């Protein structure tokens, strides 16, 4: 398992910090589909956090379709986009983008800079131009 690091002092709840890192590892390919996550007990010991925090993180991750919990076997990275409908996905994306656009506007970032940053991030995750007609992926 990849290194998960938490900062208990942060204003971001610990379960969120765990979720964000698992999501990042899954999205960046560092954790492949089907990879097993540590057990709740194991992770709560490694991080020295209450097991209910890990349960909460895993439950939310499952709800969002990032991981799958298999009875008696543990938690595994799910196939991308599993468990989320097109509409749900769009809703989440809109909310996140809106947040970013608001922040960008407040710091006075020009639209083309915002677009470029988004492109760069997409590329880093291997999502650039994927699915476009005649599109060429970078790898």
């Amino acid at each position: 398992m990849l290194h998960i690091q938490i900062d208990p002092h942060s204003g971001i709840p610990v379960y969120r910090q765990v979720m964000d890192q698992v999501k990042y590892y899954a999205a960046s390919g560092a954790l492949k589909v089907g990879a097993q996550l540590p057990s709740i007990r194991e992770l709560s010991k490694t991080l020295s956090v209450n097991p209910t925090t890990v349960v909460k993180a895993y439950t939310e991750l499952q709800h969002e379709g990032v991981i799958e919990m298999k009875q008696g076997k543990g938690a595994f990275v799910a196939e991308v986009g599993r468990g989320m409908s097109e509409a749900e996905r769009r809703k989440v994306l809109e909310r996140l983008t809106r947040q970013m656009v608001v922040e960008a506007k407040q710091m006075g970032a020009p639209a083309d800079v915002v677009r470029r940053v988004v492109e760069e991030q997409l590329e880093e995750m291997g999502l650039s131009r994927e699915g476009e007609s005649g599109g060429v992926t970078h790898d």
Partner: protein
Amino acid sequence: MIDAAIEANDLSKTFPGGVVAVNGLDLRVEKGSVYGLIGRNGAGKTTLIRMLVGVLRPDGGVARVLGADMLRSDRRTRQRFAYVSQTQQLHAWMTVEELCHYLSHFYEKWDAAYARDLAGRFGLAWDRQVGLMSGGEQRKVSVLLAFAARPEVLLLDEPAAGLDPIARRELIDEIIDVIGRAEGCTVLFSTHIISDLERIADTVGIMDRGRIITSQNLDDLKSRTKRVQVVFDGEGPPRDFVIPGTVRSKTEGPVVTAVVRIDDESQLDAVRAIPGVRVNVFALGLEETFIELFGPASRGEFANGGTS
């Protein structure tokens, strides 16, 4: 509703000389919960815990652990919980082994193997007289004795005081272990080390002047308490401007900075809609929240909406 492991209703205690230590306090800790209690020195934490365990008689109100009033409880009930006080007097002439042997007669569920195991993990010499140990080591012995009783409820009054960082982490790991056990265990602990609390507590109670001013899920508290900064163009905010949900606020020129309780995502929409206004929202850790509440010039008031 889930059963309460610890309950207090309208609990009060005034000490001779008129010092009001606990003042009409209500508390509810659910079974299986890890409840972290914070508050400034003199807020009444120790007095509260001493009343919960029945070593101090309240002037008014009721305190119950596992449904029983500790002042009237029998031995059977009393052995279902364990208490580590700040000023535990251990029998100094006894060794750890002798203490364990002695206490095992009082606790039906005493776990001798676990006691020995803990001594090893805490680095405590099994055959050493407790009186010859350092303050930190004696503290670890108190913790060991409490855990080895395999209680259903653990009440820990500043268990980490005087422990080095490694020992504190061992203590946290031990708490994680006991709450993960099938029989379950409810833990209430007071501390000044907020990062410890943030690791293991699911619920946090903030105590001030003899009352619990807020008691809520730690994640909720963190998600809902934010620092919000509103920057006005030019002249600054209108005279009656207040950020909705403000707990504490200050204005410096065109900038209003406030600790805000966010109950609704759209709560700040109206502020964002004011022309020429910039709104920044920052996450706030528990320690910062605490300092905002009790630091210089604060009133220590907290809108207690979400006691769930």
